[in-house]
């Protein structure tokens, strides 16, 4: 990709990029072929059958069902090949890998705030290691933004009041563009930054070099105490008047409505800002809402804390990329409702 192509294609720096580019080449090839073919035929006809005398009336040509069928079915089949390929790549990308390292992203007018699971904070920069799967959990403090890294070929809108996520695995070290791709107001074009892909070792050093920061989980634990969550859910989330939180994340929670939901990021966020919406079976809705009392950053910290609760010792920070720390791993199902 180094030669003359460089100006036609962005660098491919993630495991996904090659797949998207392959599809792009296929699309370009097929569409260029047909565009040239059809324009060629049109130009040929226009020259060959140009009007030679002002009053000539060409013989009418009857339509042909056979031809119509052919040029309906063939484009349809080609289009379906695009569909299958495109959707296939998309679904590979849509499912976040279980073993990804998580990084929290909060968008606000007009900056990107990033926090690593070790506590490092960055603004408009994202340091990531090469060769490790990274999952971004994203939300917005105000309007809709979109987190776009062209060299990784990934983009996802960042919405207020909700979590969205996307993941990547970088394959190349270097500094790359990070853009906000959803128009978000005055300084939209200034809501840009850099993605810095480092060798894993360097990255670990970089993380270690910025020690002293509280991890999100630890900060979340403090919040958990100061907001009074512990009085109902227990100091380590063991439960009490409120449901048990330890080991909750990623499990099915049965609700009073008789249905059950997976306790994912969205569910936990919803339970903090709108506790009445989905009440766990066996409990009543006595929890007050925390909407407006905790910022998006703090919500993410609480989330990180609750996620960390499946480990015996909740205070322990989540080490980067250690398989033991992965949050969404299936776990044995502990008791949800202490009775």
């Amino acid at each position, binding site marked *: 990709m180094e030669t003359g192509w460089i100006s036609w294609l962005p660098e491919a720096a993630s495991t996904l990029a090659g797949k998207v580019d392959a599809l792009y080449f296929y699309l370009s090839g097929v569409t260029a072929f047909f565009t040239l073919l059809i324009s060629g035929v049109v130009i040929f006809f226009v020259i060959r059958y140009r009007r030679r005398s002002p009053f000539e009336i060409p013989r009418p040509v009857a339509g042909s069902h056979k031809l119509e069928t052919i040029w309906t079915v063939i484009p349809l089949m080609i289009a379906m090949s695009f569909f299958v390929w495109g959707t296939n790549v998309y679904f590979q990308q*849509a*499912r976040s890998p279980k073993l990804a390292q998580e990084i929290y992203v909060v968008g606000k007018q007009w900056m990107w705030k990033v926090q690593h699971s070790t506590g490092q904070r960055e603004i408009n920069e994202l340091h990531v290691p090469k060769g490790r799967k990274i999952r971004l959990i994203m939300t917005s403090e105000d309007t809709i933004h979109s987190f776009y890294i062209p060299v990784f070929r990934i983009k996802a809108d960042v919405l207020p009041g909700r979590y969205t996520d996307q993941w990547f695995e970088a394959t190349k070290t270097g500094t790359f563009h990070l853009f906000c791709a959803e128009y978000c107001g005055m300084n939209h074009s200034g809501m840009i930054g850099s993605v810095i892909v480092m060798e894993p070792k360097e990255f670990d050093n970089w993380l270690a070099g910025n020690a002293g920061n509280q991890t999100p989980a630890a900060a979340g634990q403090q919040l958990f105490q100061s907001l009074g969550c512990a009085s109902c859910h227990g100091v380590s989330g063991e439960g009490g008047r409120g449901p048990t939180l330890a080991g909750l994340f990623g499990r099915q929670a049965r609700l009073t409505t008789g249905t059950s*939901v*997976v306790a*994912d990021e*969205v569910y936990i966020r919803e339970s903090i800002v709108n506790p009445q919406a989905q009440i766990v079976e066996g409990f009543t809705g006595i929890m007050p809402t925390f909407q407006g009392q905790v910022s998006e950053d703090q919500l993410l910290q609480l989330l990180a804390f609750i996620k960390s609760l499946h480990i015996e010792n909740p205070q322990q920070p989540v080490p980067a990329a250690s398989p033991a720390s992965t949050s969404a791993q299936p776990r044995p199902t502990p008791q949800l409702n202490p009775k």
Partner: protein
Amino acid sequence: MSEHIVSVRIYFLILLALLVGTVLTVVAGKIDFPFHLNVIIALTIACVKATLVILYFMHMRYSKRLVWIIFVSALFWMGLLFALTLSDYTTRNWLSQ
């Protein structure tokens, strides 16, 4: 084609049916039916009432096929709006399950 004149008797019958439907829906609304039937019953009564209005008060029954097609296509498009938008909302958390 000349227009069809609906008799007053039919208009009275429809009025009666509509009033009965209104009473029924209020009464049924207060009864607790199993299996979320309340919504279904309320909407069924509303649909029946609406059909009566359309067929008789609005003379749909005596109208050309074109009018039927126009009306049904409106409902069809409303259905499209509902179906495709709900295809988003109902499947949003499938991936995480």
